[in-house]
């Protein structure tokens, strides 16, 4: 007897929808085993992770706050991934967006500058993210450099640029030598939606982005070009679309959205620039994009789910004394299962007897 993967005649639409759910179920089982090994009661631990945050209004708001950057970045990344273009550097674009937007906040800090500051910061954030994303895009188009490597490596450069600024030129003189900028002025801060929570207007922006990208992908010729490039690159060239332009476009859009998410995060829930503004949003967004099937609405749901793991992880650290890094383990396992389950869309698993084993080996 032997397990084989057999190619399906057609893609299975059922599995395409079920795959993320199967992946989540498998992840929960794996996590339960992991908790058991750590000596915790798996049921209690999973309850702390996934149920408790949903029962508390403050935690619900926090989930939306965490989901905001994840969704915004992941929607941009999905455009790249649909077109088979691999921007892995959203984390760097997020940081550079935060830096560029913060520049205006730092420059106008304590001045009489009016309400144009926040819009200016958002524009600078998006522009910074987009320009930073153009580095790997241009390297790919001009020199054929692998965008996976270049975009990833630029993340670390971005981090140290930001680190240098907050420890050096932009450090708050009254900040007791902590590596942060001065707190942003009210005109440089994203407004809060509900008093008493941290829920801010950026969440609405993320929802708007989801809708705009959904329309673009489904209804416009640009969306068609992106989908065609991923589905059949040669047909895309025959269609008259230029693959270089597509690389530049998708990198620019995903970079802009990551940069926008970065400045919203800094000007919103955080309120000043400091070295650890991101718990890896740019990387987690990759998981969100795939878990959401590279579909804007799916990404919205997946973003909320991954945000839940962040909040649950913080809860669990306090409630059952497990390390916060367990959240990253959890997210890694989830991505692993999502990608594994995706192969079931095109393949089926079959148990075959010994007599036909040789066939499988030979074909």
């Amino acid at each position, binding site marked *: 007897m032997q397990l084989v993967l057999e190619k399906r005649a057609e893609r299975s639409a059922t599995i395409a929808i079920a795959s993320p759910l199967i992946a989540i179920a498998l992840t929960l089982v794996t996590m339960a085993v992991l908790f058991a090994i750590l000596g915790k009661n798996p049921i209690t631990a999973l309850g702390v992770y996934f149920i408790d945050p949903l029962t508390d209004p403050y935690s619900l708001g926090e989930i939306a706050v965490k989901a905001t950057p994840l969704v915004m970045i992941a929607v941009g990344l999905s455009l790249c991934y649909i077109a088979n273009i691999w921007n892995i550097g959203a984390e760097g674009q997020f940081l550079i967006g935060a830096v560029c937007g913060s520049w205006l906040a730092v420059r106008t800090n304590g001045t009489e500058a009016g309400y144009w500051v926040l819009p200016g910061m958002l524009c600078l954030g998006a522009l910074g993210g987009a320009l930073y994303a153009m580095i790997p895009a241009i390297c790919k188009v001009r020199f054929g450099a692998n965008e996976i490597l270049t975009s990833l490596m630029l993340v670390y450069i971005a981090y140290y640029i930001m680190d240098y600024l907050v420890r050096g030129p932009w450090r708050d003189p009254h900040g007791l030598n902590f590596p942060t900028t001065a707190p942003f002025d009210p005109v440089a801060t994203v407004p809060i939606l509900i008093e008493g929570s941290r829920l801010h207007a950026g969440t609405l922006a993320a929802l708007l982005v989801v809708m705009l990208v959904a329309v673009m992908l489904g209804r416009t010729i640009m969306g068609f070009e992106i989908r065609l490039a991923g589905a*059949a690159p040669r*047909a895309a060239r025959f269609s008259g679309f230029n693959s270089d332009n597509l690389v530049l476009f998708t990198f620019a859009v995903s970079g802009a959205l990551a940069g926008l998410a970065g400045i919203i995060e800094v000007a919103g829930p955080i309120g000043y620039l400091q070295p650890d503004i991101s718990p890896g949003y740019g990387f987690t967004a990759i998981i969100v994009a795939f878990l959401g099937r590279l579909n804007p609405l799916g990404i919205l749901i997946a973003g909320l789910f991954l945000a839940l793991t962040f909040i649950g992880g913080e809860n669990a650290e306090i409630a059952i004394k497990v390390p916060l890094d367990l959240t990253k383990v959890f997210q890694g396992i989830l991505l692993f299962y999502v990608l594994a389950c995706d192969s079931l869309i095109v393949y089926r698993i079959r148990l075959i007897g010994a*007599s036909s084993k040789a066939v499988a080996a030979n074909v």
Partner: protein
Amino acid sequence: MHDISVPNVSSGKEPLLRALGITKRYGTFLANDSIDLDLYPAEIHALLGENGAGKSTLVKIMYGLIQPSAGELRWMGQRIVLAGPSEARSLGIGMVFQHFSLFENLTVAENVALGLPPTESFAAISGRLEETARVYGLPLDPKRLVWQLSVGEKQRIEIVRALMQNPKLLILDEPTAVLTPQEADQLFVVLNRLREEGRILLYISHKLDEVKRLCDTATILRGGKKVATCNPRQETAASLARMMVGAEIGQVKMASVGAPTVPRLVIRQLSLEPDNLHGTHLEDVSLEVRGGEIVGIAGVAGNGQDELFAALSGERQAPSDGAVVIDGEAAGLRGVTERRRMGAAFVPEERLGHGTAPRMKLSENALLTGHAASGMVNRGFVDKPATLAAVDRTTKSFDVRKAKRDPEAVSLSGGNLQKFIVGREILREPGVLVVSQPTWGVDAGAAATIRQALIDLAGRGTAVLVISQDLDELAEIADRIAVMFHGRLSAPLGAADATREMLGLLMGGASIERGAGTQEVGDAVGT
């Protein structure tokens, strides 16, 4: 009809391989429906049928690649179950596939060694290879790199590789599809010799003349069933075709065309470096296609046809704007979309992945070429009803059969998808149409529809350029035929001069008598 089994000449002998009631089911689809087949030693047995008739499935079962759902194989009277090709080979069954499985960057001998069990030293294999090649008159240099070889030579590797296993039964899948008529003749000599040695050759083809010339017995499949076993020499090409298709095939009617008018597509001294290691260098290609005529480009695959198509469609740019002229406008440096807007349309050879995105719906595939100039895009937004309407129009005009209104391209059969792709371009009423292998792997009915549509389009004043390896097709529809060889294009021959003999010589690289095509040469270069 012909459902009688003709007693074989060697009826006294036992069949070497018997297939009894072979059935292969894919879901509800019957690829093979209880097929019986007897193969006797020392015969060339043709397996005839249209695409999708079940020929490939049957031979793959005989070669152990596929397991039958029902039925059995008997080898010298003994029931056998072939678990895989290696078991088939050890019995003495060999196969030469239509698509070669060769590593381009390795030598001939290395390729052969890779396919053999690792019991023999490389030097011994090289020696045996040379010996086999010499004995059968299939010259091959074991040390040459495969990518440097012609298609005919690559096929020789496959044949020699199969012969080195000393097969009693050799299955050949459309071996002449890639050969010039002269190369095919050389192959027939080898095949006849193999028959004299007592081997069986199971010969898959749809070229009826060849089968009549070469084969002793023919088994005809249609829709997964065996319809007849006959002696092809006693049949006419028409009667064989009737058995294959199950109906008369309509003859293509020439449209009543006036004389060709002005040149609408002009290629002027086009030279182009290949864009990959194994591509062909286009050298000084010149041609002129006038409105109202169909010009054919013949040639063995891999002689620059792909490069020429890419340069004409705009997927690759010509070195100068004037190298390609569409309706009087220089287009050599323009992109695909711009050329479409100038009134040109293109049908590439590959249906799936080049002409269409396999996993996208037909309406999206209509948009694939229609976005340029067919009013399907409004301020960046796709006009979905317009794309669906285009699908409906194509479906109606070209009888595209499909399960629902707007299925994925990949779900259509080859013939129906090809009708869709050709129809998609023809319904735009282009001024220039460049089409590559318009009926490659398409059933006879769809092929007739497509050829007729090309003729009718030319009749309405379009300049049609057909790149095809099928000489019969070109003879049927083309007004003039030029031949590509090693990236160069011969002067076009008028239909009367373009005999198979002449075309075959040109396809093999014979240089052209300047005199034969002077008129056309003058036309092509003179403008």
